[in-house]
């Protein structure tokens, strides 16, 4: 009674999901399932891991190997899973708060190790589940329940953060540009090393309401109108980039991967024994 993609990759008895009307997370979760299907990955070879937050409900709905862990620590659990079972495709689903605040340290060190994990940040610029507190990606001067007079912090650019820490693949997509996002997730999963996808979501319930950004459709229109593709950025004059955000691939390189390096050490010293 649902589409073939949903039948193939979801725990249908768990649907409909608990996310609010118009929440972009559902779109990104579908995009992730589509990417896994496009890559023809065996379901038993995929492991989806999450921490805590709205985004972190995802493993409950996807019919792969799944693990729902503690706040911010999904990447630490994922490192364990990957080292114990290196042939698994390990995908971490996390939120902006879970990934860059509570789990900020895990993020930079997982990136530094370049372990073959794909982290997909469902970035809705706010803590949705706990009631709309501002997060590390809430833009300056915008509002949250804990910033009733405006947020004075600067927002993280998660892609730049991961890039500087050592990730070998970084990209940004949105819940509006779905086909591009699916392609990005495919490339991120295929990259042998740490990949970070900043997937811009929409939160009409908290972020939208607190900042008078309108309903789900208005917020989708914002993503459509204010996203600029990385491929055309250099050709545009600075005034056309004002208040815009950039989507697309930023980094796609190859560097020694952690589990492979680890296995090399084991092999070398086992021989000598």
């Amino acid at each position, binding site marked *: *009674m*649902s*589409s*073939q993609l*949903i039948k193939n990759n*979801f725990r249908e008895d768990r*649907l*409909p*999901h608990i*996310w*609010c*009307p*118009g*929440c*972009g*997370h*559902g*779109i990104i979760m*579908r995009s992730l399932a589509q990417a896994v299907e496009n890559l023809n990955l065996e379901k038993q070879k995929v492991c989806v891991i999450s921490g805590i937050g709205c985004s972190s409900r995802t493993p409950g709905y996807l019919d792969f190997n799944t693990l729902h862990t503690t706040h911010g620590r999904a990447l630490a659990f994922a490192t364990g899973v990957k080292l114990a079972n290196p042939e698994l495709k390990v995908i971490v689903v996390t939120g902006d708060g879970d990934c860059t605040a509570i789990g900020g340290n895990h993020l930079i060190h997982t990136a530094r190790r370049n372990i073959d994990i794909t982290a997909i940040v469902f970035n809705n610029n706010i803590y949705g589940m706990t009631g709309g507190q501002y997060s590390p990606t809430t833009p300056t001067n915008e509002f949250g329940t804990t910033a009733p007079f405006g947020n004075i912090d600067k927002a993280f650019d998660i892609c730049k953060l991961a890039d500087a820490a050592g990730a070998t693949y970084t990209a940004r997509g949105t*819940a*509006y540009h*779905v*086909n591009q996002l699916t392609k990005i997730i495919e490339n991120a999963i295929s990259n042998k090393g740490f990949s970070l996808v900043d997937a811009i979501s929409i939160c*009409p319930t908290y972020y939208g309401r607190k900042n008078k950004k309108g*309903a*789900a*459709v208005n917020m*989708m*229109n914002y993503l459509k109108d204010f996203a600029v593709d990385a491929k055309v950025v250099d050709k545009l004059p600075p005034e056309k980039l004002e208040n815009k955000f950039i989507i697309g691939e930023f980094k796609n390189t190859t560097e020694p991967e952690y589990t492979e390096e680890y296995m090399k050490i084991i092999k070398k010293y086992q021989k000598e024994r």
Partner: protein
Amino acid sequence: MDNQKAKKELKIIEDWCKGCGICVAFCPKNVLTMENDKVVISDLDKCIKCGLCELRCPDYAIYLEVV
């Protein structure tokens, strides 16, 4: 319409629809409308089976079924 598209049918799972209106807003042919906070097909003849509704429905409530 090519054969592949002719074999597809637009379906709605009413129970799953949360009434966000995203499919209605981004349907290029205005095939859909909202009634009592649920999506309904108001003009099926105009549907070009592009699948944009399915792509952006956060609740998987609208989709093209291969028949």
